């Protein structure tokens, strides 16, 4: 069975989504400060890593990596839901079929405990 990553277009889907998603995140005062570092190229690369993972694409991140990457930010459900919301509306904007959106939101939800270090 093809993964949702392949079904929605693989790396090209990530490229199409990254600017839209990053624009939403930067424009959201609740979370923009986390993404507003001087090195925007690096940020774009991280957004791509995030999307690839959420789309179920090839990645090498373990749950422990997710914990380490996020622990210094002291995130709560408010932050998590904001990011998830922007992910969902990005997918809707790109006309990704609802069944794939559901799968992707499921993958994102499965990282909840690691991202929030609970």
């Amino acid at each position, binding site marked *: 069975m093809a993964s949702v990553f392949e079904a929605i277009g693989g790396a090209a889907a990530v490229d199409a989504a*990254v*600017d839209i998603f*990053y*624009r939403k995140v*930067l*424009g959201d005062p609740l979370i923009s400060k986390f993404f507003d570092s*001087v*090195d*925007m190229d*690096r940020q774009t690369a991280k957004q791509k890593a995030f999307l690839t993972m959420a789309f179920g694409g090839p990645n090498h991140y373990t749950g422990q990596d997710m914990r380490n990457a996020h622990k210094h930010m002291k995130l709560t459900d408010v932050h998590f839901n904001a990011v998830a919301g922007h992910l969902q509306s990005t997918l809707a904007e790109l006309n990704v079929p609802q069944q794939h959106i559901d799968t992707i939101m499921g993958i994102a939800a499965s990282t909840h405990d690691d991202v929030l270090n609970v």
Partner: protein
Amino acid sequence: MLGFQAGHYPLADGESVLDCLLRHQQPVPYSCKAGLCQSCLVQAVDCQPPALATRGLKATLQSSGHAMACQWHPDSDVCVRLPDNQALSVQGHIVGLQQLNAVVMKLVVQADDPTALAECHPGQYLNLVNSAGTIRSYSVANDCRQHGRAEFHIAATAQGLFSHWLFNAASLGDVLQMRGPAGSCFYVADADQQQPLLLVGVGTGLAPLYAIVNDALAQGHQGPILLVHGASSTASLYYRAELRALAASHSKFSYSALVRAGAADADCQQGDAAESALALLAALPVAQTRVYLCGNAAFVHNLRKLVFMRGVRSANIFCDPFVERATQSN
């Protein structure tokens, strides 16, 4: 544990190689501490630096184990040494020193080997090392590929080590070492040549932009090329005659200067360079426009975010933030 030259130094949790060496009073050059300027290069000994610490380095440097000490946070024992300056840099001599206004010096350096800068795209930067060993990054303002003669525009900085040396002690014939080139802020001809180019710089941020504009024109760029130069006052603008002449001879190129204070004239207005650039952008097809932003790091960072939020694609934004030396008590 961090091995360096003959010594061994304990690394604190999460500490960078650079911070650890500085904490132990080791003589490592550095400047921006942000993974940009490449002043803090070290060479790995029997270990592999992580990808983050080699990002943006030339392939030859990467394959020879070079890495930026400020971006390397080891999680096990590593050993590094200072890179071999000789192998890393190109030697040149100062052949031109000319003040462009009260606060900007034009420095021209001729590489001893005229082919040595053949790979330097106009707008990239070189790291200059003076006889005192001070290393700073400066953008190349001309096309130095053919003759190895590089032009720089350097701003006077209060209590600045390199700029103070340049304005007060440097003279024609002095030796300078040049490392590089580095940076990705330059004109690429294989992209869409119809794209509008919007170039915005403050202060000596004009240096790379001047090189990029000339390169784009030389390579036959088809779309409009709009240059905005911001400065605190008319006295700190420079190259106005050159830019006016360029605009007069190329209908697709236009130049405007923005000053915070001072008299306005035909191509110089009082106002904010970022606001003026955003007004120009509003009249362009944003999704196709390529944007170049150079100069003061805070200015570049802010405007980068603003143009991105207005719809410019991240792949179409090229930046050269002049990140200053990080503060450190030594």
